[in-house]
């Protein structure tokens, strides 16, 4: 379980997040949505232990986050792949940093790359891949460390619509296989509704949470085509518009 208490985060002297309180249950998927500059990415960096809070605390499974946590997988907006490493080397980077034995890495990474359909690209460099393929590598890298918490910062925002929906389906499938706690930051209403069992709407003016919404439809690719999906999207959109006035 994740508990956030009175969290304040600053960027130089600007307060980005102002006294946020939030609870996310284990094995829950949670989408954080809001316009640019509302601090949603900062919140994710805080959860990942990349940026330190100015005050308040983030607790994951009863221990306070200070720096990197071993069981947290992170996927960044710009993929975060090392341009000088091949698909294989990028995917296995997390494991080799942890000092995992070579043959164990080999076994794990080939399974994950096959599962994500990028095994044939293993000797290619990021520059040779499409955006969707690069993001699959980033997913592979995050999964390789067998996380219990998966954090994603606008992971699919620079992809075309088809690649984006494909990868959203991948996230659903991964969750259905192993129910990792999943937090995804996004500015797309559709993505938030499709991927979040809990949808958190951020308010850019106050630097706080405007509204939390429960969404029980998660878990099926076909959800995207239902009227419930569109109803929820409309609801979220209305809530966001209230935010901006």
């Amino acid at each position, binding site marked *: 379980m994740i508990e956030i208490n009175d969290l304040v985060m600053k960027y130089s002297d600007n307060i980005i997040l102002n006294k946020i309180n939030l609870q996310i249950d284990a094995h829950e998927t949670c989408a954080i949505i809001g316009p640019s500059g509302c601090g949603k990415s900062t919140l994710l*960096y805080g959860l*990942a*232990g*990349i940026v330190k809070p100015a005050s308040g605390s983030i607790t994951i499974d009863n221990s306070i986050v200070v720096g*990197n946590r*071993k069981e*947290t997988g*992170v996927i*960044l*907006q*710009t993929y*975060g*792949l*090392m*341009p*000088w*490493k091949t698909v294989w080397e990028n995917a296995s*980077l*997390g494991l080799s*940093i*942890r000092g995992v034995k070579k043959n164990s890495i080999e076994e794990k990474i080939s399974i994950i790359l096959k599962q994500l359909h990028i095994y044939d690209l293993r000797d290619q*460099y*990021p*520059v*040779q891949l499409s955006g969707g393929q690069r993001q699959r590598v980033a997913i592979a*890298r995050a999964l390789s*460390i067998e996380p219990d918490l998966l954090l994603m910062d606008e992971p699919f925002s620079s992809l075309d619509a088809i690649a984006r929906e494909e990868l959203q389906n991948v996230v659903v499938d991964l969750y259905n296989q192993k129910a990792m706690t999943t937090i995804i930051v996004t500015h797309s209403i559709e993505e938030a509704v499709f991927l979040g069992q809990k949808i958190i709407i951020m308010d850019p003016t106050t630097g706080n949470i405007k509204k939390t919404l429960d969404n029980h439809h998660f878990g099926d690719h076909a959800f995207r085509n239902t009227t419930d999906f569109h109803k929820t999207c409309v609801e979220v959109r209305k809530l966001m518009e209230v935010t901006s006035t």
Partner: protein
Amino acid sequence: MIKSILLNYKTVYATIFVILCWYLFHVIIQSNIIPNPFETILVFFQLLQDDLLLHVGVSFLRIAVSVLVAVILGGSLGLFLGLHEKYDLYFGPVIYLLYPLPKIAFLPVFMILFGLGNTSKIALITIIILFQILVTTRDSVKGLSKELFYSISSLGANKRQVYQHLVLPAVMPKLLTALRISVGTSISVLFFAENYATTYGIGYFIMDSWIRVDYVEMFAGIIAISLLGLLVFKAIDLLEAKLCKWALLEKGENTNF
């Protein structure tokens, strides 16, 4: 067809082109200051069996030591300043001021401090190329995106691992480019530095031939110094193809060497 031949045999093509131009000058100018290239090449091979190789070898050693020292000193100082903005605040302006200064003008100082032998020659070359390498490494570290640092620290990398997986591979292509430029510079500085207090080195060999008005031998020396430069360039190319394949792919260049 012609395009593919030119691309695959760049060096061979360039060599033939240069020799033909040389021959043309030789025919047009009709002076012994431009000797016949074919005669010169013949003399070059004869001299190789004599002591030309020794002269080239001595010069190569001087360059190698200078480059090595400059890369170690300039590279590590550049990495440090690139990663620590606080110190770059103090040293950056000083480096900016000293960078374009013609260090070669301080040769007398080097001679007095380091003597007339190898040390002053090596120190002179080192100080000249050190700045190039320092500035290149520092700026390429500074240009690294924050996201990459976030990315690697989210994987739990320690300081050594950040250098190993992020900083060093990132600066490698620019370092090699800086090295390529510095080697060109260092060969011309070497030529200058080998004009005093030595009887070995390719610079000495060329000037000595000139004084003896033996232009054929002088040109044979020029061939030797050119080959030395070419050899080092090719070595850097090979290193680049091996270590920085990704950078060549990003530039869209052929990676088959």
